[in-house]
């Protein structure tokens, strides 16, 4: 599996410049808007999306046939994609978090007054939020790519996300219809207490379900 991970990493090495430019622009945006917490979230999502482009490289080189001739199992092939995706989310979160943390003292050194005070808990929540968003996208998109291919899979992913939004809206409408009242304060307090834990748990559950579905699709497929 290490070989497969190296292949994806080397494939993405052409993205080095793109990634650097993105981080640079995010840095400039942070400086301009002072939206430190948002930037970490955005960087995390972008890095996670770039990681999914390894599927496009595989598709354009028709590499799946060749990879299946190598001494790796189908399970390892699918698992390597998930390890790569999860690593990209962690790396994106780390880059976003560190960029914000490092930029604040630099900015403050140029200011004599109204120094920026970095809210670490907000930055942390925002980073985890970004990681959650991209992990949800990856968890939906990877099985779609295995089923429909890299190009069509992206379209299918948007269809799925659209369906999820409709479902949530419907649930909201039903709650309203049956006059179920939810106290915003209670929700906020619950989220403050268990939010991060729930998001991390949800990510693990999404990835596990997604991996299981992707493996089933890949296993049944004739490559």
């Amino acid at each position, binding site marked *: 599996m290490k*070989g497969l991970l190296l292949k994806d990493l*080397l494939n993405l090495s052409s993205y080095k410049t793109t990634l650097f430019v993105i981080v640079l622009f995010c840095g400039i945006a942070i400086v301009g808007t002072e939206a430190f917490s948002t930037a970490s979230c955005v960087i995390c999502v972008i890095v996670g999306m770039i990681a999914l482009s390894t599927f496009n490289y595989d598709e354009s080189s028709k*590499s799946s*046939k060749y990879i299946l*001739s190598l001494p*790796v*199992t189908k399970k390892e092939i699918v698992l390597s994609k998930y390890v790569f995706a999860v690593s990209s989310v962690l790396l994106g979160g780390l880059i976003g978090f560190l960029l914000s943390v490092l930029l604040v003292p630099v900015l403050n050194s140029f200011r004599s007054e109204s120094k920026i005070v970095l809210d670490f808990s907000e930055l942390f929540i925002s980073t985890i939020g970004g990681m959650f968003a991209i992990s949800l996208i990856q968890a939906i998109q990877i099985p779609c790519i295995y089923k429909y291919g890299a190009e069509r899979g992206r379209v299918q992913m948007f269809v799925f996300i659209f369906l999820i939004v409709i479902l949530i809206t419907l649930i909201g409408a039903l709650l309203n219809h049956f006059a179920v009242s939810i106290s915003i304060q209670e929700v906020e307090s619950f989220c403050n207490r268990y939010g991060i834990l729930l998001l991390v748990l949800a990510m693990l559950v999404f990835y596990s379900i997604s991996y299981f579905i992707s493996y089933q699709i890949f296993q049944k497929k004739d490559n």
Partner: protein
Amino acid sequence: MKNTIELKHVSKEYPGFHLKDVSFCIPAGTIVGLVGENGAGKTTTIQAILNSIHFGGEIQIFGKDNRVAEKEIKQDLGVVLDDSFLSEYLSAKGVGAILKMMYANWDEKKYDTYLKKFKLPSSKLIKSYSSGMKMKLKIAAALSHCPKLLVLDEPTSGLDPIVRNEILDIFRDYILEDESRSILLSSHITTDLESIADYIVFLHEGEIVFQLPTSDLLEKYGILKCSEKEFEQIQKEDVIRYQKRKYQYEVLISDKQKMRKKYPFAVIDKATIDEIMLFYVKGEK
């Protein structure tokens, strides 16, 4: 003689295509050429050997079931596919680093030697290589872990005669290095197979038409040419296939010497693998 590969009643069905009950074997130390028209089932057969598709029947490689001992078998298998490789966005150096992590017997020195021998720049991206260079890199990658069996799907297609000849020489050297090694080579270019293969397996519409030694095909098979009247004198069991031409009949026969004695009135020419294939596909029985 031990068999490196044994296919027993292999079948696979796609819409509009059926690989039917394919059984053949590759004895150790031999080169077997897989021939057939487009869509005959050559690639499907190779995919079944590599266990990359679901198929019916059984395939044994090195005496082991290819579904059960897949990973173990593939450690000793070198594969070249015409239309698929790791990635166009990698360099030869990157390919080496990846495959080193996958093959227990990966020989870095051997790989570097092949790269130098084939004049392949190790740092350039593969997408900038010519077709011949890409094929040579695939071959270098397939040979550098000293496999016991090479599976080659159209390794010479789209290449000029000089590069094709160089590539065939590499395969000959590979067999000469260790005579227990085997090669399964699928190709459209039957002249390549005439010069290198020990056996020819001919697939037509998903079925095996014959598996014969190449020397038998080239030395014993022939094309008997005669008039309509003379054709009527030829016994049915001597006719494998025949074609009616404008001025004569052409008959595919399996024993030139015997037929020359039996039908002295007829002209009998040597048959190429291409001609034999054409008779089987287009000829009447």
